[in-house]
């Protein structure tokens, strides 16, 4: 689908026009909010933004929506790949975390939201971007990104406020609302209103976007790419780094078990029933890393960036079905024996007995096995005496072991990503004899 960009912008005129109208209206709401609170400086700022988006709306209706230069798009696409995207997100999350008391300021957060909305609008003038984002089943994922941003802000803002209060020896803000209210009418009316709003939102959504229905199922025509439903795309994306038995079975099971184990592993009694970060830093960081970086981000990559042959595509890149990425993957054993030591990889001799066979395989995989041994056995022991000493003391052997195993398994994903990107290593231990690779 190589559309003329100019023509496409004209096609999108109505949509983009209304989009900017809505964004402008939201900013008008911000102006009103600032007037009510007598914040005149910010009132002026958001008034200017409102005017800006109104002009953008006018231009869009006119078929001249703000668009990115082709050269800029090419540059953006050239820059983003799995590595820069993942590392970039990580840096972004770390910066957000460290600077949270700044980023949760309403004005800053609102500016960020505006920037994100502008980015969406500008990108929607690109046919490739628009094609992916407006696929009916992908629309909810776009919504989810914005919802996650908004709710993360909301939760963090309250946590920052509470941490400030707790530092002053005051109770968290939830405590300010300690009075009891009767369920009738306070709760039941909320529920009624909520149901009405939810129904209206769903009705509008349903009237606006038709449920997809493609060609009838045909077992002989395989779509390229074949994608799992979007909420499983994180798992499908993990297939790039792990075998199906790990990415599709073992890791999901560990995720479920690990989630269930959270209340039994988190022995910290503080931070129960109110937003806080400072009182539960460790749990907070682990959860956010697992949820935002390792689950949501992989879904986004799988949905928006993976195209034919599961190749990675930039945001605005043509989804070329003939794109091939030369894969020169190498097993750690090959790297160790051939590249590292300049020897041939030990082979199992034909007709070797069980013991010889097993010993040869172990010898062949010695580098990977050593790594895993250090990682899963020596490291936990070491940590229990140093960094995580207080954890170990308070949790006892069993709970500590379970927690550290879950953590290390979770960290295997980024480790395998880095190994792949830097050394092209596909498997740390590869036992094709047993259909087992790790």
């Amino acid at each position: 689908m190589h559309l003329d960009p100019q023509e496409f912008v004209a096609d999108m005129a109505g949509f983009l026009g209304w989009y900017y109208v809505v964004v402008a209206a939201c900013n008008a709401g911000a102006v009103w909010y600032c007037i009510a609170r007598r914040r005149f400086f910010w009132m002026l700022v958001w008034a200017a933004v409102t005017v800006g988006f109104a002009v953008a709306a006018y231009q869009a209706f006119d078929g001249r929506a703000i668009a990115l230069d082709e050269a800029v798009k090419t540059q953006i696409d050239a820059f983003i790949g799995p590595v820069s995207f993942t590392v970039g997100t990580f840096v972004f999350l770390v910066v957000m975390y460290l600077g949270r008391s700044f980023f949760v300021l309403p004005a800053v957060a609102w500016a960020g939201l505006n920037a994100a909305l502008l980015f969406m609008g500008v990108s929607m003038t690109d046919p490739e971007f628009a094609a992916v984002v407006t696929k009916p089943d992908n629309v909810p994922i776009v919504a989810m990104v914005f919802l996650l941003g908004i709710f993360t802000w909301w939760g963090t803002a309250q946590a920052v406020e509470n941490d400030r209060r707790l530092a002053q020896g005051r109770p968290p803000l939830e405590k300010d609302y300690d009075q009891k209210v009767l369920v009738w009418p306070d709760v039941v009316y909320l529920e009624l209103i909520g149901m009405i709003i939810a129904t209206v939102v769903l009705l509008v959504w349903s009237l606006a976007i038709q449920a997809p229905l493609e060609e009838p199922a045909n077992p002989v025509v395989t779509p390229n790419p074949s994608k799992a439903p979007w909420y499983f795309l994180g798992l499908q994306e993990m297939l790039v780094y792990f075998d199906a038995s790990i990415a599709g079975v073992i890791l999901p099971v560990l995720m479920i078990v690990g989630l269930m184990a959270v209340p039994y592993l988190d022995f910290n009694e503080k931070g129960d029933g109110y937003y806080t970060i400072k009182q539960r830093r460790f749990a907070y960081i682990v959860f956010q890393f697992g949820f935002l970086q390792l689950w949501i981000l992989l879904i986004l990559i799988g949905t928006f960036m993976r195209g034919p042959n599961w190749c990675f595509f930039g945001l605005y890149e043509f989804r070329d079905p003939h794109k091939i990425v030369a894969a020169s993957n190498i097993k750690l054993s090959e790297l160790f024996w051939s590249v590292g030591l300049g020897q041939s990889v030990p082979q199992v001799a034909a007709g070797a007995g069980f013991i010889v066979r097993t010993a040869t395989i172990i010898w062949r995989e010695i580098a990977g096995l050593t790594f895993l041994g250090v990682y899963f056995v020596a490291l936990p022991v070491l940590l229990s005496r140093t960094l995580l000493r207080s954890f170990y003391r308070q949790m006892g052997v069993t709970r500590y072991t379970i927690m550290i195993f879950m953590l290390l398994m979770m960290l295997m994903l980024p480790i395998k990503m880095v190994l792949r990107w830097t050394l092209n290593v596909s498997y740390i231990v590869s036992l094709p004899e047993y259909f087992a690779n790790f």
Partner: protein
Amino acid sequence: MAFGKKIIESIRSSQLWKSVFRHAPPLDRRNRILAVVSNFVLHIHPVSVKKHVIRPGFTWYMGAITFYLFLLETVTGVLLMFYYRPTLQWAYNDMLALRDVVSLGVLRELHRWGAHAMVISVWLHMYRVFLTGSYKKPREFNWVVGVLLLVMTLLLSFTGYLLPWDQLSMWAITVGSNMARAVPFVGYEGPGQQILSVGGIDMITGGSDSRFALLGARVVGEETLNRFYILHCVAIPLVCAFFIGLHFWRIRKDGGMSGPK
């Protein structure tokens, strides 16, 4: 106005009304309490709650929204079942009919977008429960129940995805269910499956492994459609409804919603 009041008054004092609602209008404290405790639907609520519980900033209302979406999916799902037959001959055609012929043509849309929304809202609910640390003692077990509900929400969505029987659905389920053949020991491409062989004959083959159990066949076909239909419309909703009941019951038994001590 006076006339309207009179009508309402006569309805309220009728034997029929009084047999259903056994209390005076909920205008004073006593009758507001009665309105909750004497009502079957409302009595899952306590009589009163702390104010912070109903602040939008605390729960984001995501648990309630998830529950509402579950109800909405049940209703629209039942309506869809009137029009849908899970067979190779009819499944896709019934989708076409639902789009082009059936009145109230947004039924499928409501059900599909409701399902997507439910996946998102259940994640956001879990996210909030984590951020407020609400899984801590004594709510550990309700968190576990919650994780089961999360899994069931995803499975409901996944099994429903196949039913339209178009290219999108069939191949998405094929990709997803391919994982089932890599299950250790019992999937025929899983690690260690050779161990289960008797006298040199593999017990685990494409026709007897875990993927076969899921699909009812070697590939996604009519047997799969039937299996997923029953899982989607009967089995998982029933289990899910049970666990939702347990989840709500436990909120009450754990001392109501969490909050600062």
